[in-house]
């Protein structure tokens, strides 16, 4: 739910990175944090366990600067991927404007991807949102590993509506900004 603040002349949009545990959601945000100019981003907040698994969320605000007099900012969030953290996951989706699903390309994670995608549909529907109607892109991460499903297989299983998809190796930054660019443009378009 983007807020257009005419008093402070700001527009804030919320983008959530979703997907199964260890698929690379936090890695996406860490790479973005590392690469964008420090004056265009805020602090990266990570609420994680001691073993660096996301417990609640990661949060990174990125500023587009002033567009036609409005300071435009994207709030990037990740959710905890592990199945039993669903209550926290649902909270982070509140008011979402755009979603990135980060899929783990490894063959043995295909079921986890499918389960996470179902869970995303389910959680969004509780807020009255339909994934087919909001800005949504898919990133197939870990394409550099030897044991990956083919792109066709992943698309068939995870992308029936043929939303934009991107191949990625998030630890090396490959595909990270292509994904962010695509979802942020869709979000901006949805404001008009």
């Amino acid at each position, binding site marked *: *739910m*983007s*807020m*257009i*603040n*005419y*008093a*402070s002349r700001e*527009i*804030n949009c*919320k983008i959530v990175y979703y997907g199964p545990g260890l698929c690379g959601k936090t890695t996406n945000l860490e790479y973005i944090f590392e*690469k*964008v100019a420090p004056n*265009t981003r*805020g*602090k990266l*907040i990570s*609420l994680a366990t001691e073993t660096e698994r996301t417990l*609640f*969320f990661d*949060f990174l*605000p*990125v500023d*587009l*600067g002033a*567009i*036609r007099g*409005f300071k*435009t*900012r994207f*709030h990037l*969030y990740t959710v905890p991927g592990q199945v039993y953290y669903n*209550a*926290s996951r649902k*909270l*982070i989706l*509140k*008011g*979402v*404007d*755009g979603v990135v699903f980060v899929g783990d390309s490894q063959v043995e994670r295909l079921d986890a991807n499918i389960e996470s995608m179902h869970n995303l549909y389910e959680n969004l529907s509780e*807020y009255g*949102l339909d994934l087919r*109607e*909001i*800005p949504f892109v898919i990133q197939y991460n870990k394409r550099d590993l030897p044991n990956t499903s083919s792109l066709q297989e992943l698309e068939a299983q995870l992308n029936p509506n043929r939303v934009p998809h991107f191949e990625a190796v998030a630890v090396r*930054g490959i595909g*990270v*900004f292509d994904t*962010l*660019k695509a979802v*942020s*443009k*869709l*979000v*901006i*378009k*949805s*404001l*008009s």
Partner: protein
Amino acid sequence: MAGASSWSFEERDFQRIDRLLQGFLYDSNARCALLVDRTGQLVTTAGEKPDFDSTAFASLAAADFSANDQLASMIGENEFSSLFHQGEKESMYLADVARRVILVVLFDNRTTLGMIRIKVKGVVRELAEIFREMFDRSASAPQTARVESAFVDEAEDEIDRLFGDL
């Protein structure tokens, strides 16, 4: 493509709310008040200018409140309408406003929790009325363009420029 519903916060809303918050700060002797929407966005602040990252603060405050909402329902409560975090010198009081927004009050030993509680009750009632009006206005507004197409074009160029070669 439709995004999630959005709402707008206009200059006249800001002025009404700012007046209320200034009065509240004067009466309660609190240092600073922030309004944060339930999705983690900062709406406005009043009083002493926060010397911390208010964007991160807003996101954490909303998450804190949401998590406590869930805890409330687990013990059979509808909600916790307020939360209190006590520090050695600085404390925080958070209160729900019409299930839409959270009022966060920062205060120190120049006042007391009792005083904050009493004064928050009054200001929350008035704020709730204003926010209900605002959200009703957003809900009843026809779904016409909210930003002009020139804004979209410029924003897209900026996205390319900012994220282009990274």
